[in-house]
């Protein structure tokens, strides 16, 4: 009886409705370009996917009346910690060539039974885990290709496309980190992406990762592959950073991003 009262206490204090039960919920992600879904193995289109992998953390669902609940992920040995997931749409096919055949295009977790109309998450790895050693870290942080040892942290996002001889790839992660590998005290450019989709109906809609927006201001007809490794002197970084809502110089979220979008499932 007392235990039950305690579990109700947060509901009373926060004056929100608590139906109690948490239901399983799946949130799907799909890479798109020019409105079409992209996959590594599909090499017939004008644009091919070469990579798409990213970490997602701080996942919240928003109800119509503004209630924000934490979306707790189901822990598993490959992709998810309770508050951190690796989404991996790189299947080793086609022009995707430095990952594994395993893919993971969904977040799986539990959320209180509500009607959700909004989704928020952060693309990145929390600071307390971002500077761990990938050779000893737990999944999904044991993925070597998601780590850049020389910047002493994880690549939050790796994305790449190609078209004929042109291409672009982005490796996004914290830069300007202080200290040494085993003992990082902070990073001047955290470069974590804040995503807020206020028209997202959980259980129905899909998150589109729009690579058109990512490369909108990149010259894809210059005959060479362009890349951005998040460095301060890289001239090909400000444009994709802006698409992700990041100020390249400051490394912080300056405005809303355009890459992650709600895709209504018909």
């Amino acid at each position, binding site marked *: 009886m007392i235990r039950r009262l305690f579990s109700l206490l947060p509901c009373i204090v926060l004056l929100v409705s608590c139906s109690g039960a948490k239901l399983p919920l799946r949130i799907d992600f799909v890479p798109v370009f020019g409105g079409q879904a992209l996959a590594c193995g599909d090499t017939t289109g004008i644009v091919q996917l070469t990579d798409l992998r990213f970490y997602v953390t701080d996942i919240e669902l928003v109800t119509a009346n503004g209630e924000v609940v934490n979306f707790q992920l189901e822990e598993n040995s490959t992709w998810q910690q309770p508050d951190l997931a690796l989404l991996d749409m790189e299947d080793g096919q086609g022009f995707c060539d*430095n*990952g*594994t055949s395993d893919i993971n295009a969904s977040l799986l977790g539990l959320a209180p039974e509500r009607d959700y109309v909004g989704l928020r998450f952060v693309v990145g790895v929390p600071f307390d885990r971002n500077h761990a050693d990938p*050779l*000893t870290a737990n999944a999904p942080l044991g993925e*070597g*290709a998601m*780590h*850049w*040892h*020389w*910047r*002493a942290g994880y690549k939050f996002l790796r994305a790449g496309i190609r078209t004929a001889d042109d291409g672009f790839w982005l*490796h996004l992660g914290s*830069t*300007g*980190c*202080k*200290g*040494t*590998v*085993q003992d*990082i005290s902070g990073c*001047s*450019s955290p470069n974590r992406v804040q995503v807020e989709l206020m028209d997202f109906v959980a259980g129905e809609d899909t998150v589109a990762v729009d690579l058109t927006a990512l490369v909108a201001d990149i010259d894809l007809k210059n005959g060479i592959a362009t*890349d951005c*490794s998040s*460095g*301060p*002197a*890289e*001239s090909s970084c400000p444009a994709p950073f802006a698409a992700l809502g990041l100020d390249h*110089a400051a*490394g912080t979220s300056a405005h809303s991003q355009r890459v992650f979008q709600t895709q209504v499932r018909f």
Partner: protein
Amino acid sequence: LKKLLLPLLLALLTVPAVLLWMPEDKYEWHIAKNLPVPEVPVDNPMSAVKVELGRRLFYDARLSINSTTSCASCHLQALAFTDGRPRSIGATGELHPRGAMSLVNTAYASRLTWANSLLDRLEDQALTPMFGENPVEMGMAGKETQIEQLLRSDPHYSRMLPKAFPADENPYSVLNVIRSIAAFVRTIVSFESPYDHFLRGDEDAMSDGAIRGMELFFSERLECFHCHGGFNFTDSTTHANANVDRVGYHNTGLYNVDAFGAYPADNTGLYDMTGDRRDMGRFKAPTLRNIAVTAPYMHDGSVSTLDEVISNYARGGRLLDFGPNAGDGRRSPYKSEFIRGFELSDTERSDLLAFLHSLTDQSILEDPALANPFMNPESVR
């Protein structure tokens, strides 16, 4: 009690394991008494079998994406573990923005690579050439499973790994590859140059010119020793008994492409790590040991000879008259206070060069214990 049981059991298992391999396998440093031994991370103690395993891995091209490139491809023993190129070339042909640094006395480096303030352990640094993607060096990003398969299938590795890492339940890991290579690289220790012999009392080890050159090198007039000082000729030096973290990054006035001190965009030095404009063009002063055999010079190999290096410093910064990187490095606002310029007579210049040549330790270039075990099977212990 239950909580205590596991640690107790682990402790009981560890003690005999340690006793079993420690005494017979202890690594002996061959370093003169007046010199410090390198600092070794507690989680990667030295052992003879680990060093030998690391040597094989260092020379094994199967650790690259197309089996063309080993660590030794860019770190050749005969060139004091550099590759003679201005900038190194990776397994897939990609040109590295920078030249391969000498691995001689890397065990004493307080920070690794040309300009990475984060990397202070070889165990962390070794991951970048193997797995880095920008640029691709050995190109093994995402190929960890392939490496583990090699470790299990190769007769040497499958036999040596359990011996080198007796406490590991599964010794066939990338972590142990890295640890072994780091242990081997720590053994590339050089203190047998004519200069070292001279310091130990052999007055004939250096020519009179080289001795005069040494005096110039350590003079306030030339300022060389401020950055290239100490037993390892670099201010970024540490050792087992060091109690301060000594790290130095310096802009030597090599570039000034926009008249505001900019370096070429793909090679901005410490700035790339910190994003702080004051770090533009700041690079670590490399050791000058064996410097005569590690041409071309500077982080991007843009200076061909030691003579030209001296000319740039004498001028107080390099002048590039034309080309995409044209500019007067002497006028860089970020230039080190020690790059002030100096005048040097022809004799003094040749004396200084003679001194720099006296830092070449011939034995390190020929030591069979550091040589390729695949080329010379007899040297395998």
